[in-house]
């Protein structure tokens, strides 16, 4: 392991991503910071704090979507030129992006769907929207509300699935094969549904609410933070994790896992801890390798380069950097 770059972005790092070989970092107070051969480049995105970020993968890799307190939704492409996609005049708290270019954002009870041709459709929900996620096929949108989860067909805006349960969702995600829908909420557990049968399951054992998760490259594992360790839930079988126990990783008695990120091609997980330590843990149970230790407080985000050899990290106090995996 060796440090490639280190920088201070001034406030908590919300998201890290790569644009080619260069890492980009999004700060809580509305800045996008890039470090290139030419030096540090700062690009103000929002007037106020950023409330949601999504970084795009595939051909749109290096593009980041942000939404903030100023009511704007911004897209910053590979050339670091921010473009305003929408302005709703109120806080935009949820954001999701589809690989084909459509985006969804929510402000209060309203969900806005902006397709790739820039036409916007609005849906009004019965309560404040808490979380949004597109499926991987790109034809459905999951909308998390208080005590309710909706799945909307994008072509018709018809609600095809409505699930009620007791909880306040904080994040929602489809499994990479779109068979399962997983919801993290403010309680210390995860809820899941197998969409073809709408069979519900609960993933239990957490000591606090889940704040970070990541799917393995092959989609067979969902890795989440879980207090002093990370947990890998198996999603490889017909029923996914139902009736099964997960594998735990990276337990440290002296600190807690603050974020997790799966390697893009191997069964490796990068783990960030509340004391700034970063470990690389193999799912096969080999001894963890120390990636580095930041002095910037809890690690808030980790992101692998698509080649799997570079890892960008950000911390709560704004210390960010890039690590090369030897």
């Amino acid at each position, binding site marked *: 392991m060796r440090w490639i770059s280190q920088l201070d972005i001034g406030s908590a790092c919300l998201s890290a991503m790569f644009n080619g070989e260069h890492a980009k970092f999004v700060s809580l107070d509305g800045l996008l910071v890039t470090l290139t051969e030419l030096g540090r480049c700062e690009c103000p995105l929002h007037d106020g704090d950023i409330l949601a970020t999504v970084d795009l993968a595939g051909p749109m890799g290096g593009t980041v979507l942000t939404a903030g307190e100023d009511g704007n939704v911004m897209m910053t492409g590979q050339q670091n030129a921010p473009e305003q996609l929408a302005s709703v005049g109120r806080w935009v708290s949820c954001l999701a992006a589809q690989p084909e270019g459509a985006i969804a954002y929510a402000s209060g009870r309203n969900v806005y769907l902006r397709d790739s041709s820039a036409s916007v459709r609005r849906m009004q929900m019965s309560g404040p929207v808490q979380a949004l996620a597109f499926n991987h096929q790109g034809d459905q949108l999951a909308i998390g509300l208080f005590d309710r989860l909706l799945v909307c067909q994008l072509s018709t805006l018809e609600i095809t699935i409505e699930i009620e349960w007791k909880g306040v969702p904080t994040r929602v995600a489809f499994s990479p094969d779109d068979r399962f829908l997983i919801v993290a909420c403010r309680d210390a557990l995860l809820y899941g549904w197998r969409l073809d049968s709408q069979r519900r399951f*609960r*993933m*239990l*054992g957490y000591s606090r609410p889940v704040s970070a998760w990541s799917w393995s490259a092959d989609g067979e594992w969902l890795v989440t933070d879980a207090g002093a360790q990370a947990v890998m839930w198996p999603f490889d079988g017909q029923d996914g*994790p139902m009736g099964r126990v*997960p594998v*735990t*990783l990276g337990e440290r008695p002296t600190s807690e896992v603050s974020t997790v990120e799966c390697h893009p091609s191997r069964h490796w997980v990068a783990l960030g801890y509340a004391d700034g330590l970063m470990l690389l843990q193999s799912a096969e149970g080999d001894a963890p390798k120390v990636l580095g230790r930041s002095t910037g407080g809890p690690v808030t985000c980790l992101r692998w380069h698509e080649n799997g050899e570079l890892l960008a990290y950000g911390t709560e106090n704004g210390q960010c950097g890039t690590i090369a995996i030897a």
Partner: protein
Amino acid sequence: MCADFDFEGQGTFRRIPPPTEQLIDRSREVESKLPGTPVPDDAWRVFFSVSCGVMDMGHFTRMFEARRIALSYMAVQRARFARRHGSATGFRCVAD
């Protein structure tokens, strides 16, 4: 060894679990890989028996260190196994 003698218990013997075959084998394996002269079999018999015996202090130190390493190794292996299989973690997925 004298490990069975409980001095605080006024000379009464306390029950302790005997060493497992796995611990004995692992300790001897570790000891054989330590630098220096291997200890004789007799010393091993005394070391792991519940009765007292006489052994060379250098042998005792060597066997004690080998046993400590073996115990640590086995503890890590057990913990890893439990984690891999999730039996002791309390995490589970319940279908409703």
